[in-house]
């Protein structure tokens, strides 16, 4: 549900803006000069806005494609991410976007063509190198597809560069563009997963784990490559049993041959970001758990983190070969 639509004056006639507006016929947009004049204001309550988010249609002016943080990758030597959107339809309690932005409004950058150009530049500059582009770093890649048409636009572009991988990171089960396309061999549809019992409590508004697994299974049977992202790993009573059940459930339903990569990531936040997130949501169970300051990050203690990582990796190795495992910690 969109509370209000804002449109930057410069793009008010952009065809993508016009087609999005057709989907919100009853909304009267407000025209603004810069998205930042709504989005970047100080003194905003992310939690209230999350209940009543607005959509801001904007155009990105620079920095279309950025290098990923160190230690973030799925096997290729060059890793980039690009964000056509800030913020997400879902409301996961541990989501770092709450600390990254002061507003929960959705900013959608409609100038896809500029992203495309920079992606192509990077590809041609790194010709013959192994490159992965990640989408879904500042949003969910597919959750907003019906409005944005993002995947529908970008997948045909990546199809032309079979040596370059594109990862779509998602929790969505709305897979329309993928279900109606032939699988693209260099596209990895990567799903974030955690035990059902935990997801029910922390992945607000996101599709249930059962639904995600069903969707993965359908995509897999079509031949799409699948990424499994057990990130963040969340601690609690019986966590070993919960994660064992999750892995069993996943591998019972998915053909292992289509699994492209598996990553595990600890629950972690940059210190200042965590301060902001907890101040907005002081009564979150997962954020009130025994998290400690380690260097510049807030996370479980080293002991818990290591134990979870090695236990889960150990279990997963019974299902999948070592070569599929990657670290996606994204160290900051």
């Amino acid at each position, binding site marked *: 549900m969109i*509370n*209000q639509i*804002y449109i930057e004056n410069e793009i008010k006639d952009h065809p993508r803006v016009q087609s999005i507006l057709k989907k919100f016929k009853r909304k*009267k947009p*407000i025209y*603004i*000069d810069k998205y930042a*004049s*709504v989005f970047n*204001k100080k*003194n*905003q*309550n992310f*939690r*209230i*806005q999350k*209940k*009543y988010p*607005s959509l801001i249609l904007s155009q990105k002016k620079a920095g279309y494609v950025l290098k990923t943080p160190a230690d973030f990758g799925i096997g290729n030597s060059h890793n980039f991410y690009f964000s056509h959107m800030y913020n997400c339809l879902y409301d996961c309690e541990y989501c770092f976007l709450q600390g990254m932005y002061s507003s929960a409004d959705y900013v959608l950058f409609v100038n896809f063509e500029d992203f495309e150009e920079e992606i192509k530049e990077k590809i041609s500059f790194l010709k013959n190198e192994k490159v992965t582009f990640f989408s879904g770093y500042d949003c969910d890649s597919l959750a907003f597809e019906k409005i944005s048409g993002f995947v529908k636009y970008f997948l045909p572009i990546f199809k032309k560069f079979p040596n370059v991988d594109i990862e779509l990171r998602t929790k969505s089960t709305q897979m329309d563009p993928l279900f109606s396309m032939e699988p693209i061999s260099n596209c990895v549809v990567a799903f974030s997963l955690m*035990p059902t*019992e*935990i997801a029910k*409590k922390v992945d607000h508004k996101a599709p249930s784990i059962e639904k995600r697994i069903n969707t993965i299974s359908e995509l897999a049977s079509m031949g799409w490559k699948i990424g499994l992202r057990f990130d963040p790993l969340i*601690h*609690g*009573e*019986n966590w070993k049993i*919960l994660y064992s059940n999750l892995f069993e459930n996943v591998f019972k339903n998915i053909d292992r041959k289509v699994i492209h990569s598996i990553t595990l990531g600890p629950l972690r936040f940059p210190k200042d970001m965590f301060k902001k997130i907890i*101040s*907005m949501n*002081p*009564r*979150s*169970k*997962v954020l*009130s*758990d*025994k998290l400690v300051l380690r260097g510049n990050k807030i996370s479980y203690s080293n002991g818990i983190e290591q134990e979870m990582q090695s236990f889960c990796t150990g279990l997963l190795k019974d299902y999948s070969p070592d070569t599929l495992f990657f670290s996606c910690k994204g160290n900051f």
Partner: protein
Amino acid sequence: MSNGCICWVIALPSEAKTLIEEFKMFPIQGDTLFPVYKNKNEDEWLIITGVGQLNATSGVSYLYSLCPYARTSFWINFGIAGAGKKVGKIGDIFFINELRNYDYDKVHYPFILPQLKIKSAMLRTYDKPQNNYQNSFLFDMESWGFYNIIQRKITRELIAIIKIISDNSIKTISSISKDFVKKLVKEKVEYLVSLKDIGYSLSRIEMERKKEPYLFSDITKNIHFTFSQREQLKKFLIRWDVHFPKRPLFPEIKDLKDAKSVLGYLESSLDSHILKWE
């Protein structure tokens, strides 16, 4: 106070009169810089600031210092405004979704309230009365001053500007009288009541977020905590509330004599707790 709180900022007595009566507010006792009213529950406050941005700004600061719930209240600037002929009819009520000042380029975009049942429009604040009715916006003499000061103090979602068109042509300006203004307001009271419901619900969310943790005052009254220990105590008490909602803390710490032992006890209890997900 967990019901939320509303603070009205209004320029003229004739704009405020109906609200004071309808919402059963009475003047607060003693010498005050501006006329200030509140209801019996002290969860609704109203200040009459006088005309102009400077008065609006001082009025906001004054009410902010008086109302104990000011930083989590829902603040409404309400009153009459002129409007371009095409914007609406006399008596139409508007939510201001874009706010500009006459002499420079800055702009504020107030948070759009959910379930808004009235029209929205842009408003420009001037320092002198205006009689140009060709424009496509509303105009007044206070809103910019009001918004500009309150948005520095509280979160944007708790601020609203609501205006009723009082004049939209040179001819109509002469009919503005105290009684006329009261009549305009009276006709929209029903809407203002529903606006209060939204305001209270948003204010409650902010109050809940900022509320002092349970037992914080009791503990710090009896035991000395340094500034950083107080901050740590707040964090632990919130965590206690989250993880042990049914476990009374007081009996467990009543014999502890100093800050260090209280904090140590809380920390070890919290750290040994394991979250239950099932």
